[in-house]
């Protein structure tokens, strides 16, 4: 099955980054319909019926997340997580840069549905150009009354404010993002309380990913029940997959969940491995998830099938490596990332990523010592499930699976002797 373009339906239409072409393609019709003809609850019901799951990585059902907001009359906030930083993931970037009004419409629709007057789009600091694109899109939408103090003359206020982060992967974790949006260091918060009850400025808050909020527009167009018919029962709709690494046609591809296998995505859609090479392994959901080897490439791309295969759908960032890739080098590169991005708040993550990085570095430079492979496995198990936030588990996702799948290759990096004269006498 080829691509099923829902969010990307109009992405190649010239000028669709501007409001006029976006409107010509039917843009803002759903916003108009929702605000003028539907109650906020009716909009939320469509999202609930769609079975949409969060597209940022965790895959939590969006409708349920919204339903957790307490009905206590306090100010509510909507925050769009546009801190796209998971290595291998570049899908939100494409929505922001090429079809920004889809995001803006989804944000205003969702803010309306949950009863938020203020919505924020928290973008990673590197998206400086994207920030200007979103600022311009907001200005265009404001001119036409789609947001601001008096949305489409209804007297309802919905304001959208973009916010630029400043370089920190951890701010993609929703509570760290909220800290950063409040002007603080991006340290994750203890949960509970969850953002639904105590989020931005301590108020009830929903945090949703760019792709999730963009999908809300299409859910309204199709109706939640129709959207739910796409994909599988537990993985409804379409999903954007970023394919990168050693592959002929890297790119962002949108497919119906559960209807396309990883093999079809990598070969039929992305063109297969570079000439003269074979795939060695793929990370299907961003750098935080376990590797799959080609014998598992027939796994359908949906949440439950990938989980059954021992990995995760995550963000949909598919990094694929071919037979030239050294698994120790790749593991080292990923570990350096997590070591750099650990916020340092808790010990297993801060110290663990440092030690893992050091051991991998000496193995990669040909100075691996006997016992190093065991040390890596031991360090992984001391991080697994032991950290304050998901970054620790993310750091070991690929490595722990690599140690199982490619143990011989790790072992081959251990030098025969472990002293300056070679083998040490027992």
């Amino acid at each position: 099955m080829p691509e099923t373009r829902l969010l990307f339906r109009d992405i190649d239409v010239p000028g669709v980054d501007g409001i006029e072409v976006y409107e010509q393609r039917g843009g803002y019709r759903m916003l108009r319909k929702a605000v003028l003809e539907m109650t906020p609850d009716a909009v939320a019901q469509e999202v609930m019926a769609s079975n949409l799951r969060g597209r940022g990585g965790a895959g939590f059902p969006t409708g349920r997340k919204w339903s957790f907001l307490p009905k206590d009359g306090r100010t509510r906030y909507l925050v769009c997580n546009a801190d796209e930083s998971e290595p291998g993931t570049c899908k939100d970037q494409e929505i922001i840069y090429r079809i920004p009004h889809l995001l803006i419409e989804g944000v205003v629709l969702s803010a309306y549905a949950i009863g938020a007057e203020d919505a924020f789009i928290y973008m990673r600091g590197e998206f400086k150009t994207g920030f200007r694109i979103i600022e311009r899109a907001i200005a265009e939408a404001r001119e036409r009354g789609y947001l601001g103090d008096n949305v489409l003359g209804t007297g309802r206020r919905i304001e959208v404010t973009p916010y630029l982060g400043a370089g920190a992967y951890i701010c993609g974790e929703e509570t760290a993002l909220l800290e950063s949006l409040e002007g603080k260091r991006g340290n994750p918060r203890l949960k509970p309380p969850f953002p639904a009850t105590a989020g931005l400025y301590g108020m009830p808050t929903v945090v949703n990913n760019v792709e999730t909020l963009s999908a809300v527009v299409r859910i309204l167009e199709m109706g939640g029940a129709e959207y739910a018919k796409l994909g599988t029962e537990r993985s409804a709709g379409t999903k954007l997959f970023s394919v990168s690494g050693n592959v002929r046609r890297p790119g962002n591809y949108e497919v119906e969940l559960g209807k396309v296998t990883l093999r079809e995505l990598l070969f039929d859609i992305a063109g297969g491995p570079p000439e003269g090479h074979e795939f060695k392994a793929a990370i299907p959901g961003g750098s935080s998830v376990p590797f799959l080897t080609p014998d598992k490439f027939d796994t359908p791309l949906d949440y439950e099938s990938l989980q059954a295969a021992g990995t995760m759908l995550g963000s949909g960032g598919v990094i694929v490596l071919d037979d030239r890739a050294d698994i120790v080098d790749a593991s080292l590169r990923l570990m350096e990332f997590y070591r750099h991005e650990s916020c340092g708040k808790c010990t297993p993550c801060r110290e663990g990523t440092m030690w893992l990085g050091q051991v991998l570095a000496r193995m990669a430079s040909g100075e691996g010592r006997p016992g190093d492979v065991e040390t890596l496995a031991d360090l992984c198990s001391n991080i697994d499930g032991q950290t304050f936030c998901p970054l620790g588990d993310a750091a070991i996702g690929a490595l722990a699976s690599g140690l199982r799948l490619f143990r011989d290759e790790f072992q081959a990096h251990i030098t025969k002797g472990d002293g300056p004269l070679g083998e040490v006498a027992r």
Partner: protein
Amino acid sequence: MNAENLQKAKELLHRFPQKSSALIPMLHLVEEEFGCIPEAEVAVVADLMGTTPAYVESVLSFYTLFHRQPTGKYLVQVCRGLSCQVNGADDLSRFLYEELGVTRGGTTDDGLFTVEEVECIALCKDAPAVQINMEFYPNVTKEQLRAFIDKAAKEVKSGA
């Protein structure tokens, strides 16, 4: 900060439901104007925010896009994400270090170039990717970098 940015900074204080949110946007203004966050500006920002310089330091030190030392006129950031690495990112970094005679994070003596290797910049499908002064460049080659270096150096000469 110059008068224009000072005005913008004051406006930021009222931009968000709570004033605290203005801090990071304000630091972006400083970084843009100075190419780093100078000590004296930390005090200015602290004053505007009604907090201490130490608190401002604690926040800005968390974020990699705020520099403490001035960067060159061109801040060249080579993405070292895994997808970029398997597509030749290390070759690009090495090329820049050799051509410009700097080490990682270093600035050329003429203050023209700073070279950094940065973590994934979300351009994985266009690997190897490079960012120059916060603008993205996809599928970068050594030839492109060579031409960029030559052109930038010439501009400076003709300007002087």
